[in-house]
């Protein structure tokens, strides 16, 4: 599997994962200063999913995301400086400060938006898939949903619609074991998201979401199917969330040592490094990490220095006309 991707592609994948890691860990620190408005939900620990998915997509393909959307946004190519400014509520943000962490979007990059409504993305993604199918442009759409979100009616309806209309769409379920503080084992009746999806008549598999290659491979097959008119696929990616549900969550529902164990044994970046050990020198990856750190550093500096939106933006862009 490792071999299907050439070295450039592997480096590119690692860079994206590194960007996500650096972005999130830095936000964790920045948030402690009290300068970030609102809620933020960090993606650390799940990098392999976003990148494993998006490395299969073209810039013209679409993704729909969740409240935990930074990783998806970075993986799909959103500008890190623009994202950072957005999180800080600045006019230079990708949404001009009007969306914030939970609503980062950039349609020009095929990013349909993070979403504050759990289960919101799948129905938007089938819409993007309908566009692709109708315009016959070979496009594909992907939605991200959590294990908690897999209980939301919107999600089931979207899956059914997708099989009925044979839409080029892929439903990614990021099963990180918790929805807020409630366990997957409790909230997901049947405890198997793939069984739900296959009940709607689509191929459904479960993969290790900490392994970039496992995700990449499953999605690659699904994308092929979608692009060639074979309809939707559902992929449940098992992974872990390292931080609290949102920054500030004390995580009382965790076992003692749970997080330390994750960092040690389930680090998607480490796992990636191990798998490419024979092809790529550690120093090359370290160099990427250093570049990325500098990039994120600069993004924070610029975001902090940037101006808040001017008053006239309050009324701008509600409607296209009127």
């Amino acid at each position, binding site marked *: 599997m490792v071999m299907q991707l050439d070295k450039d592609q592997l480096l590119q994948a690692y860079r994206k994962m590194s960007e996500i890691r650096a972005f999130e860990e830095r936000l964790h620190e920045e948030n402690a200063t009290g300068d970030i408005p609102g809620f933020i939900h960090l993606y650390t620990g799940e990098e392999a999913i976003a990148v494993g998915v998006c490395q299969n997509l073209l810039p013209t393909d679409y993704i729909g995301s969740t409240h935990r959307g930074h990783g998806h946004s970075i993986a799909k190519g959103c500008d890190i400086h623009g994202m950072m400014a957005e999180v800080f509520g600045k006019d230079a943000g990708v949404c001009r400060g009007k969306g914030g962490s939970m609503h980062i979007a950039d349609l020009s990059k095929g990013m349909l938006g993070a979403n504050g409504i759990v289960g919101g993305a799948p129905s938007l993604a089938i819409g993007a898939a309908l566009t692709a199918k109708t315009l016959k442009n070979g496009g594909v759409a992907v939605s991200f949903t959590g294990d908690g979100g897999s209980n939301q009616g919107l999600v089931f*309806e979207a899956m059914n619609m997708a099989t009925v209309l044979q839409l080029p769409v892929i439903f990614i379920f990021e099963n990180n074991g918790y929805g807020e503080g409630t366990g997957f084992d409790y909230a997901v009746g049947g405890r198997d998201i793939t069984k739900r999806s296959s009940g709607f008549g689509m191929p459904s598999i479960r993969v290790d979401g900490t392994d970039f290659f496992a995700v990449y491979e499953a999605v690659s097959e699904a994308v092929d199917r979608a692009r060639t008119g074979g309809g939707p696929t559902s992929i449940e990616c098992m992974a872990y969330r390292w931080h609290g549900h949102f920054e500030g969550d004390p995580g009382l529902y965790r076992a003692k040592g749970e997080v330390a164990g994750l960092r040690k044994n389930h680090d998607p970046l480490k796992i990636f490094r191990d798998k490419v050990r024979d092809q790529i020198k550690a120093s090359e990856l370290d160099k990427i990490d250093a570049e990325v750190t500098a990039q994120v550093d600069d993004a924070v500096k610029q975001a902090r220095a940037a101006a808040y939106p001017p008053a006239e933006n309050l009324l701008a862009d509600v409607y*296209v006309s009127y």
Partner: protein
Amino acid sequence: MSTKSYREAIKDAIAQEMRLDDTVVVIGEDQRGGHGGHQPEVEALGGVLGVTKGLWTEFGSERVIDTPITESAIIGMAAGAAATGLRPVAELMFMDFFGVAFDGIYNQAAKFRYMFGGKAKAPLVVRGMVGAGFSAAGQHSQSPYHIFASVPGLKVVCPSTPYDAKGLLIASIRDDDPVMFCENKILYDMKGEVPDEPYTIPLGVANYTREGEDVTIIALGSLVHQANAAADRLAKDGITCDVIDPRTISPLDETAILESVAATGRVVIVDESAARCGFAHDVAALIASKGFDYLRAPIELVLPPHTPVPFSPALEKLWLPDAAKIEAAARKLMGA
């Protein structure tokens, strides 16, 4: 120009736009009818009341998209499609069903543009029936357009005639914002003159359906006709009325309303959306804040009681505002 029903005018608008623009698609339950049934080549329904009948035969299953019973996915899919290049005309059948499907409009489509910093648009139309008077009972007779109008980013249209229905629907389809298009079901068989060629009526321009001097009556949808009937009766006693049909609630033609009030000083607002926090209250607040100095008398509201719509025709008739109640309100204002 031909004589067409309100129903035909709506279909006409969609068909003409579909011919002009390949990105216009129709999405909804039973928009064809027959998919998966035992008559594979028949267009069985065209929407449950046949409003879109004929479209499937002309455009086929790729552009007239039959869906399961799945309103959340219909609306969400339409929103996602609109943001990525289509101009969907989605049908919610009865607007009363917005309760199972509102998120895709309320938190998604309506907010995309603003929340994404002006970098997205969502040109979709959601069609659906509103209105009491059909003995359709509590869950199929409501007119939640006041709720839609309260959501920033949504446009809300309520045509009262075949002519308006066609022109406003074409304008709605061409509009780059999401539009809730509210069809009053008791008007479907109403006939009127409708131009054959495509035309638009701009959203946000009210129609003076009658001009007078004494009282301004403001009404939407089927109640425009009740208002006009009341105005006719009043005219016999020398009381003349402006009857204003705003046609669109959002945007609202504030100027037309305030100008009329400036001239008459007396206002009756008729509506069936809600006895509380409804369309009538919105207009009353507009007038009480921006047109207060014109007013010579209290604003009269002719509204249903604050109850669900009752099934029995005996009660439903009492529930709905009608010409007699409008007339009485106007006479009260004239002190007679």
